[in-house]
């Protein structure tokens, strides 16, 4: 449908625009991966849209470098043994219903997670206690160097505990009481959320502190079909797309009144290699494949030069991604060919390698989105250049996960979206074989390093070092080949809105919408 839409679009006349939204009102379309949220309840929801970022605040927030900066907490201190954390809170903060936000609020908020889907976030906290009205202390069951990360996620948004308890199941659907820069006006599941400015908001993060949002109303629309969302932006039916799919980047760039805003991405595209399936049970063949991928060519040819060539498993904004050069996987055809030669696979007359009369033929699994198919074709061609023939097998997006559970894959092209080093454990732990450990890696030393990284650190510096060691060791086994680190691309109508550039935040949420302006 996407390509059909583009084809027809090319022949359509650029013409009459729909009436724009009211002067101080902005209409934005949610990212495709945020559509379908049925609630704004941060305690129990497993999917929350940007609306949740805007109606609530969190104790801490991440800046554009993924460093933790104050939000509701002014400052914080971790005890040297990691067994207590003390947070100094901003004074004068109030919820949408006028209730003051104090240390007691935090103490009452944490127990709401007991028995909920998101309980794991605060599993390491024994209890919280009030030190003063603006100071709260967390007493820990065990050190948790990842606490600030957990506190900065959207699931750690802080609702008014009294309203939360009183409204029960209806909290987050019929009503939301947070401290965020916007209040809930209406929420129609699957259609749209209308937010109104919180005029009292003066505790915004970073550059936006001291003033409420400039816009009065924000409508967040859900449009699952990318071509429809793009046409809405083109015709002026909406002012912004929170995410522009790669297929439509060229269309946005080619429209005079539309512009792209590029933000650092939190996803990574990679090729898992099943270490248990021949020929990839031979580390030399895995090494050959890992160094055969020309990442820059992929960035340029498939993604129009946007984004970065990946050389490890973590997004480059994470400190744990900074590993020693010998553990980075880059394009090196000589090394790739040598590794495959060393493994005994010799190039035949047709350019495909052979060993013992058997051709070096494998399968490459991919999912049905057009971008994945294109990417897989480029990878296929690059592997062929070093003498490996890969047959592409395409699976439906909803079904591919079950296919991985069979363990039959050899190579695959896939992506993940996560901004914490603990993703290494998710995809390479010996306790998660088949899925999510598609590489089927189960190595005793990797397990030891994993344990040290996940639970062995007392503070964040130690955690970072342990994860770096775990990352380097995994790379030395070549259970995957990194490919590409995308950027987030937002599209907006320059006749209607002005976006803050550069944006000092990891995502376009609280800070972005506080600074967003409507052109009069």
């Amino acid at each position: 449908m996407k390509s059909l839409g583009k084809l027809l679009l090319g022949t359509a006349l650029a013409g009459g625009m729909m009436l724009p939204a009211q002067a101080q009102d902005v209409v934005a379309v949610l990212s495709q991966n945020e559509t379908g949220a049925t609630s704004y309840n941060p305690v129990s929801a497993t999917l929350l849209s940007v609306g949740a970022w805007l109606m609530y605040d969190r104790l801490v927030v991440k800046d554009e470098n993924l460093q933790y900066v104050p939000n509701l907490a002014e400052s914080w201190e971790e005890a040297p043994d990691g067994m207590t954390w003390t947070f100094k809170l901003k004074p004068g903060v109030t919820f949408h219903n006028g209730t003051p936000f104090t240390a007691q609020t935090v103490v009452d908020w944490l127990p709401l997670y007991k028995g909920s889907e998101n309980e794991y976030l605060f599993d390491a906290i024994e209890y919280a206690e009030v030190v003063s009205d603006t100071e709260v202390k967390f007493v820990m069951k065990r050190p948790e160097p990842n606490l600030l990360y957990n506190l900065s996620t959207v699931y750690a948004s802080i609702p008014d505990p009294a309203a939360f308890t009183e409204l029960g199941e209806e909290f987050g659907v019929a009503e939301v009481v947070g401290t965020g820069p916007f209040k809930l006006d209406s929420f129609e599941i699957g259609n749209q959320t209308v937010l109104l400015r919180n005029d009292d908001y003066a505790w915004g993060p970073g550059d936006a502190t001291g003033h409420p949002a400039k816009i009065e109303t924000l409508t967040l629309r859900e449009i699952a079909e990318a071509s429809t969302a793009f046409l809405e932006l083109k015709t002026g039916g909406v002012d912004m797309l929170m995410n522009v799919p790669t297929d439509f980047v060229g269309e946005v760039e080619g429209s005079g009144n539309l512009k792209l805003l590029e933000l650092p991405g939190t996803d990574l595209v990679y090729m898992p290699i099943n270490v248990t399936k021949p020929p990839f049970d031979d580390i030399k063949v895995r090494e050959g494949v890992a160094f055969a991928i020309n990442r820059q060519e992929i960035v340029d040819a498939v993604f129009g030069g946007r984004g970065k060539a990946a050389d490890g498993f973590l997004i480059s904004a994470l400190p744990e991604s900074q590993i020693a050069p010998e553990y980075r996987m880059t394009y090196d055809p000589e090394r790739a060919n040598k590794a495959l030669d060393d493994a005994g696979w010799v190039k035949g007359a047709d350019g495909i390698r052979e060993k013992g009369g058997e051709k070096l033929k494998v399968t490459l699994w991919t999912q049905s989105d057009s971008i994945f198919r294109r990417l897989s074709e480029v990878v296929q061609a690059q592997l062929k250049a070093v003498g490996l023939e890969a047959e592409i097998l395409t699976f439906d997006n909803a079904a591919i996960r079950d296919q991985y559970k069979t363990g039959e894959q050899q190579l695959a092209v896939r992506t993940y979206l996560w901004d914490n080093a603990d993703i290494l454990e998710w995809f390479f732990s010996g306790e998660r074989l088949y899925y999510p450990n598609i590489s089927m890696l189960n190595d005793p030393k990797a397990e030891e390093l994993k344990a040290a990284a996940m639970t062995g650190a007392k503070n964040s510096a130690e955690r970072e070092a342990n994860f770096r060691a775990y990352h380097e060791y995994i790379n030395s086994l070549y259970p995957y080949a990194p490919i590409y680190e995308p950027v987030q691309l937002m599209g907006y109508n320059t006749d209607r809105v002005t976006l803050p550039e550069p944006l000092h935040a990891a995502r376009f949420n609280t800070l972005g919408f506080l600074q967003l302006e409507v052109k009069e």
Partner: protein
Amino acid sequence: MLGFAIRRILMLVPVFLAVSVIIFLMIHMLPGDPIDNLLRIGAGPDQRAALTEKYGLDRPLYEQYLYWIGNVVQGDFGNAIVQRRPVASLIGQALPYSLTLGGLALLVSTVLGVTVGIIAASFKGSWLDQGLMGGVLFGSMLPNFWIGLLLILVFSVSLGWTPVSGARGWESLILPVVTIGLGGTALVARVTRVAMIDAQGRDFVMLLHAKGVHPAVIQLRHVLRHALIPVVTILALRIGWIMGGAVTVEVVFARPGLGSLLIKSLNQHDYPVVQASLLILAMAVLLGTLLGDLLQAAMDPRIRDNLK
């Protein structure tokens, strides 16, 4: 007539149960696991096991079916696994959108189809007849989503007359209603045309002509009345198909509704919502058929007599 109606309604019970079994088995045979969509990165095997047990997915399939259908017949569709809301509440929010869209689309296809059918029958064999019938047939052969995109490009992008998508005001209904309505026009037009031509050859029509009654009065007052019996039946049968046809159209036009809910839930493997949505769509077809039968029987006593 009452006896006939009761017999037809009772005949629906085994059909309903058979449909429910087919829907249940189809959904559970699809690859995919709803728990995968609930587990966040970092969740352990114990959390998977707890969630699987919580939603009864560890029980034998027949037990799961009996539990589900037992609740459904008592009016309880259960809770959505992934979307974490009561299924009845999700469907309750979506259904009015689909009913509005479907109802208006039925109206459009009826008015258009009957009008085209009457004109074609009145000018049987002429270029007008062939042109009109060829046109509606061509229109009905095009897939819904394609018509939808085409209408968006013409009326929203090029002319700027209608919104591209959404459910904000009556303007946003125009294109989706026309998209679905056009799809059903050909069938209604063809049935109307054939029934009109059939009625035109009856003795009473010749008698009316002999009496000197104006041809337009004969066509609209006498012939059309006779021709309406199969048309009404077809319209009742179309209720279910229109609801089903709304599935893709709702996605193209980004409208909330049963179709959007179904697609989203299918992608998430949210079994209870998919089962309930499909059951409602199947019920729409079944009830449409029942309505068609009842209307036909009410208008034509021979049908009632045949079933006795």
